């Protein structure tokens, strides 16, 4: 047999050993049995000791003679039925042990690789975990920032609303101011017309008072002449003596009248002079007023224009404030969304961190397992080696 040639020597020695062992095992028992039987037989049959020895020796020889062929047959049978398959088994066992050794070595290598991979994975997991922690805290910080940003946006939006409201009020006020200014311009124009009319009236008044002055001059001169006439009449009356006395009275009355006329004319003249002075002054003031009114009208025009510009600017401001408010509202919504997303991210990161922790734990466990596997593989390899060595010691025969 091809599988037997290697272990034929060992097979032989094995068979021998087995035989020997069988003998050693069975022999004393048989011998004791025989001896006991013999002793009992001798005791019962009253056989003397020597006979006994003989009988025993005989029995022993018989036994031996009987045993030898049995032994031979047994050995043959043993060799054929047990030792040959056993050798085969042993040789198979050896090859198996060798392949187990190889496999166990490979397993140990793989396990150690897995172990190192697990360690790497573990450290990577740790890093991921740290990263996730960092991410989580960053996201938290970002979330806080986003919240304050949202508050700022809302604040700005509220301010923009206020601004729009104020702008609206300002626009209304400016519009009112514009209307009032237009009214003022119209009034100023009316005042201007009135002043011009008044001015021409006063000028006419001046002319009239001058005419009156001339007339008063005439009256004064007439009064003077009258006075002179009355004076001369009085003189003539005096010269006429007794005859002129009635005439003298008339002359005196005429004189009195002329004096009163002169006085009245003088008063009128003074009044006319005052009126003329006042008129001249009034004309001058009217001219100044007219100039002032023109200036005022121009200023009112400018004011109106400025107010118009203010109205437009304020309108634009209101529109801009509107835009700002809506933009800020949009930004606030965006920020809210961002905040929610941040929270989601944080939750996911926390979850991931948990998973990573679990994974790390699992990896550690795995590492431990692989270590155990490696150790077991080592042990298995050792066992296989020892088995192989043990199998090598087998000598069937």
């Amino acid at each position, binding site marked *: 047999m091809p599988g037997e040639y290697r272990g034929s020597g060992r097979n032989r020695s094995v068979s021998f050993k087995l035989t020997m062992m069988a003998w050693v095992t069975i022999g004393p028992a048989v011998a004791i049995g025989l001896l006991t039987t013999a002793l009992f037989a001798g005791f019962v049959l009253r056989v003397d000791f020597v006979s006994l020895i003989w009988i025993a020796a005989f029995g022993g020889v018989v036994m031996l003679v009987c045993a030898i062929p049995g032994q031979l047959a047994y050995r043959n049978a043993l060799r054929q039925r047990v030792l040959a398959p056993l050798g085969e088994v042993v040789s198979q066992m050896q090859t198996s042990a060798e392949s187990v050794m190889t496999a166990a070595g490979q397993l140990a290598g793989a396990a150690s690789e897995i172990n190192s991979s697990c360690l790497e994975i573990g450290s990577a997991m740790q890093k991921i975990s740290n990263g996730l922690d960092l991410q989580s805290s960053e996201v938290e910080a970002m979330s806080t920032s986003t919240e304050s940003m949202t508050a700022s946006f809302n604040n700005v939006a509220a301010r923009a609303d206020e601004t729009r409201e104020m702008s609206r009020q300002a626009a209304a006020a400016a519009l009112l101011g514009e209307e009032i200014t237009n009214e003022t311009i119209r009034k100023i124009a009316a005042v201007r017309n009135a002043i011009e009319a008044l001015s021409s009236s006063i000028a006419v008044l001046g002319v009239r008072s001058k005419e009156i002055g001339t007339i008063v001059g005439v009256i004064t001169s007439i009064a003077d002449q009258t*006075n*002179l006439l009355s*004076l001369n009449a009085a*003189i003539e009356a*005096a010269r006429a003596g007794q005859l002129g006395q009635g005439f003298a009275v008339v002359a005196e009355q005429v*004189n009195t009248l*002329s004096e009163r006329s002169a006085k009245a004319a003088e008063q009128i003249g003074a009044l006319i002079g005052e009126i003329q002075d006042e008129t001249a002054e009034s004309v001058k003031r009217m001219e100044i007023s007219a100039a002032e009114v023109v200036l005022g009208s121009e200023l009112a025009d400018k004011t109106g224009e400025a107010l118009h510009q203010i109205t437009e600017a304020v309108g634009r401001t209101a529109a801009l404030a509107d835009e700002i408010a809506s933009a800020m509202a949009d930004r606030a919504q965006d920020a809210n969304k961002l905040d929610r997303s941040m929270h989601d991210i944080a939750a996911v990161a926390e979850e991931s961190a948990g998973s990573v922790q679990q994974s790390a734990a699992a990896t550690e466990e795995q590492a431990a397992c692989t270590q155990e596997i490696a150790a077991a593989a080592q042990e298995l390899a050792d066992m296989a080696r020892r088995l192989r060595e043990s199998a090598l010691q087998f000598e069937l025969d």
Partner: protein
Amino acid sequence: MAVTQESRQFVLFRLGDEEYGLPILSVRCVICYMEPTPVPLAPRGIEGVIDLRGQLIPVVDISMRLLAREFEPEPRSRIVVAEGDSGLVGLAVDSAGEVVSILASDIRPASKETLPVAAAEAYEGVASIEDRFILLLDPAKALLETEFMPPVAEDGDGDN
């Protein structure tokens, strides 16, 4: 000229701030002031002559005589034509226009101390009417055609 009546009439005229009076009977008429025509070699105090209805009469600068200041014509200036001893004489005055009757008892003699100029002899006296103070001229002295400025005579001034 002595007039003894209860009251006498005077023609009043004004020179500056002073009011003067001439007895009405020594006045011929009062006319508006007209510029006198200067006369060559005329005595001092004579401004010139004027034509009064065809009659040439000399005009005396009575202002110079009584107040020692030159006469300045005004719109109301008058010439009082008086009858002097040597004929008609014009007196240029600032104004004239009133005839008053003054009681003889109201006339007081002019005191030489109170009168403005040394020519006190030209005055007959002074009279107070209400609050007015009137210097009454003596025509005989005041109307001399020639000058009377040099105070020669000490011969008293006529009646009271």
